[in-house]
């Protein structure tokens, strides 16, 4: 007797539907899973057997073969447990086989038969919705996520017994009500909390408006981290589509462990400087998305960038330019989205007070030289805006500042116009004056071709922020401010 169940797996951050076929035949009792299962999938044999026995359904003492199709796709994780259990029940007649038709089954089983949440429910449901699967069984732990996909009727299950009851019609599938898309964005910090640091704040606004990368250099305590934390608050909120993309990533990365909500806030990730390559760009034996993917559509903040290992910074380069990470493993490859804005903070020297007017630097020449060597790598070459912050003077503690909401208004206007420019609906001219300034700057500051491109891009953003349709001399001049010669 053969039964078929629909399951799903995750590759990268995308869901793929899997057909689970269960065959029961006579022979020595045995239980085999085929079709590229990983260790977690293979171990489901033990969980399924115990869960079925402990839920009173009994486990057939016959020869069981479970096939996961398509056979060439790698399957991983414990999300097939429930589907395999239901498939076995259907195959041995405990459950009517056609009840499983058109149902996506997700969930990990405990030994007592209760159903645990799994990672990646959101992308798996989205894949099911796209394939026209009308219903799904979803662990209660993942209820919030399931509510984000309103094209699918969902049966929330806590136990294997629930699942059977749900399929037999003894309890109901529900169409989850699409939750109100959270309009308020949770704000980390508000710009009005940042005292002084006028140039740095201005640079942050420009960075937000043009999605430029930004390096904040300054002594400890001058507000680098606080400033970086303000960035999500002045960026436009996520669109629904973007928010769904972000939610999918988090569903895969930490689904089942923390409740997932659709939020309009842009993600803000600040990995510690001891992070590894796999931690930052993703990877591992069972590939998981890295920080750069978790910051998709948001901000990746590297504090104390001088303390990061060089190799770790170097591998960031390609993903940042491409907006995605491709990991190639033996036999398969995975692509993670990674369209994030990079913000770096660094002390100007190991002790942190070089060039500060507040305190003296105590580093030796050798320390300085080696620190600079570490900082001025190929990654820093690609940072659009570079700002040197000084410590605060006493009077600045009492200065007032614009709140984030006001700045965000300006940023959103700039985004709109820049989008129109990118789509060819609007144009930005470069004035004669700006060309003159650039020509003189190239000569005087000995700018490289890459630096010139960067400065022009920043100048464009500055012009748009001001509402100008032309890059003027003063826009270009201001863009020239945001470069450091290390």
């Amino acid at each position: 007797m053969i039964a078929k169940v629909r399951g799903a797996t995750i590759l990268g951050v995308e869901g793929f539907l899997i057909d689970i076929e269960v065959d029961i035949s006579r022979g020595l009792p045995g239980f085999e899973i085929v079709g590229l299962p990983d260790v977690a999938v293979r171990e489901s044999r033990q969980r399924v057997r115990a869960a079925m026995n402990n839920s009173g359904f009994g486990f057939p003492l016959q020869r069981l073969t479970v096939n996961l199709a398509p056979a060439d796709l790698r399957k991983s994780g414990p999300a097939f447990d429930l589907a395999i259990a239901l498939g076995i029940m259907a195959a041995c007649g405990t459950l009517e086989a056609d009840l499983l038709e058109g149902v996506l089954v997700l969930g990990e089983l405990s030994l007592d038969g209760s159903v645990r949440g799994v990672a990646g429910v959101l992308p798996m449901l989205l894949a099911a919705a796209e394939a026209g699967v009308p219903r799904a069984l979803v662990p209660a732990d993942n209820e919030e996520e399931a509510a984000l996909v309103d094209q699918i009727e969902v049966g929330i299950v806590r136990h294997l017994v629930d699942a059977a009851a749900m399929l037999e019609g003894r309890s109901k599938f529900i169409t989850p009500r699409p939750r109100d898309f959270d309009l308020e964005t949770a704000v980390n910090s508000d710009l009005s909390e940042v005292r002084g640091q006028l140039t740095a704040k201005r640079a942050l606004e420009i960075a937000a408006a043009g999605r430029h990368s930004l390096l904040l250099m300054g002594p400890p305590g001058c507000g680098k981290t606080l400033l970086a934390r303000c960035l999500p608050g002045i960026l436009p909120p996520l669109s629904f589509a973007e928010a769904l993309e972000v939610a999918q990533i988090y569903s895969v990365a930490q689904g089942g462990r923390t409740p997932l909500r659709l939020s309009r806030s842009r993600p803000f990730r600040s990995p510690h400087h001891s992070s590894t390559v796999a931690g930052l760009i993703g990877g591992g034996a069972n590939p998981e998305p890295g920080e750069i993917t978790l910051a998709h559509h948001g901000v990746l903040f590297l504090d104390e960038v001088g303390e990061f290992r060089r190799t770790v910074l170097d591998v960031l380069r390609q993903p940042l330019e491409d907006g995605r990470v491709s990991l190639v493993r033996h036999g398969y490859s995975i692509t993670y989205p990674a369209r994030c804005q990079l913000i770096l903070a660094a002390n100007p020297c190991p002790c942190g007070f070089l060039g500060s007017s507040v305190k003296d630097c105590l580093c030796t020449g050798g320390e300085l030289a080696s620190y600079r060597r570490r900082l001025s790598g190929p990654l820093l070459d690609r940072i659009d805006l570079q700002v040197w912050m000084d410590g605060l003077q006493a009077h600045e503690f009492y200065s007032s500042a614009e709140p984030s909401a006001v700045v965000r208004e300006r940023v959103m206007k700039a985004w709109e116009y820049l989008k129109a420019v990118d789509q060819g609906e609007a144009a930005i001219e470069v004035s004669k004056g700006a060309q003159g300034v650039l020509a003189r700057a190239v000569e005087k500051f000995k700018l490289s071709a890459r630096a010139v491109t960067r400065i022009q891009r920043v100048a464009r953003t500055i012009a748009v922020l001001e509402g100008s349709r032309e890059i003027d001399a003063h826009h270009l001049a201001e863009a020239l401010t945001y470069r450091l010669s290390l």
Partner: protein
Amino acid sequence: MKARMYLWGLSLLPHIGSITIKRLVAGMGSEEAAFDANAEDLKAYGGLSAAKAEAVVKARSSLDLIGEWERLTQRQGVGVVTWLDRDYPQRLLEIYDPPPVLYYRGSLGCLDGPTVAIVGRRRASPRGLGWTKRLGRALGAAGITVVSGLALGIDAAAHAASLETGKTAAVLGTGLDIVYPRSNERLYEDIPASGVIISPFPLGTKPQPGNFPARNRIISGLSSAVIVVEAGKRSGALITAMLALEQNRDVYAVPGDPADSGAVGPNRLIQEGAKLIMGPEDVMEEMCLSGQLRLPLEKPGTGRVPKAFVETPDSRTRELLRILTRPLHVDEIAVMTGLPVSVVNSSLVELELAGLVEQLAAGFFQRVS
């Protein structure tokens, strides 16, 4: 010709300094004889201990003098001058222990006229950098060669500023072919065009702590006066100042706020009798009095008019130039003038491009003159 080669050979041997070389040459009669001296002669004339004399003889036997000398003299872009040569810097011969051999890039001629050393700490403050730039530019414009040590901070600023308007000489603590620190690479390439880079150390010598006092001795030896701009309590700049006094050079110091760690050095020097300098005029006046400069002088700051003057200096430009007589941070300027920081930044860059203001350290600006 031969004598120069043997003198050079002597300078490469261990345990033999310039004083020992002088004694050996005097005792043995010629450079060649001094170079070939046996252990007994080295002990008798050079005053070396037996062990050191042995080491010298051993080092000499492994040296292919003629071959190495040929290779050196054929090397492009590296000049060698010994105290036997006429173009050896005369001022340096006045000191007690001038180096027998100097390696150089550029032309030594700039050391014949009036020279002043500007030295200071590597971790310079914007204020110190501002002063250095102003002094360096004015002295360069007045035809005075500025000597310094091509280190970070004050040294680099002194070279860069004097190079803009005049000539500069850099004395290295490494071999001539080693750029240290690397961030000064551009200066290292620009200086020889109008000035000179000098090293007393053989090619390939790596930066070692012991080299730098010897370099400082040459900096002060080449100069008729030493200006200390900013120096901590134990800065190398103070060593240069002490050496300058031993060599009978004038010592000037730019005072600072006593609370500032970088002002401890110069303020202490002033307390002990160094001349207090408030501007380039003070340096030049002092040099005239001691006969190193002759009147009439070009007025400081008029050496070169900025090439591209801002077409019409508007009121904002005038206001900025008015307050920028001392180094100020961009944010400070914005607060003082009440202008938005974007406007301040763009105005400053335009003024910088016009050559009217300069950036001292990141974010700190000052008027050029």
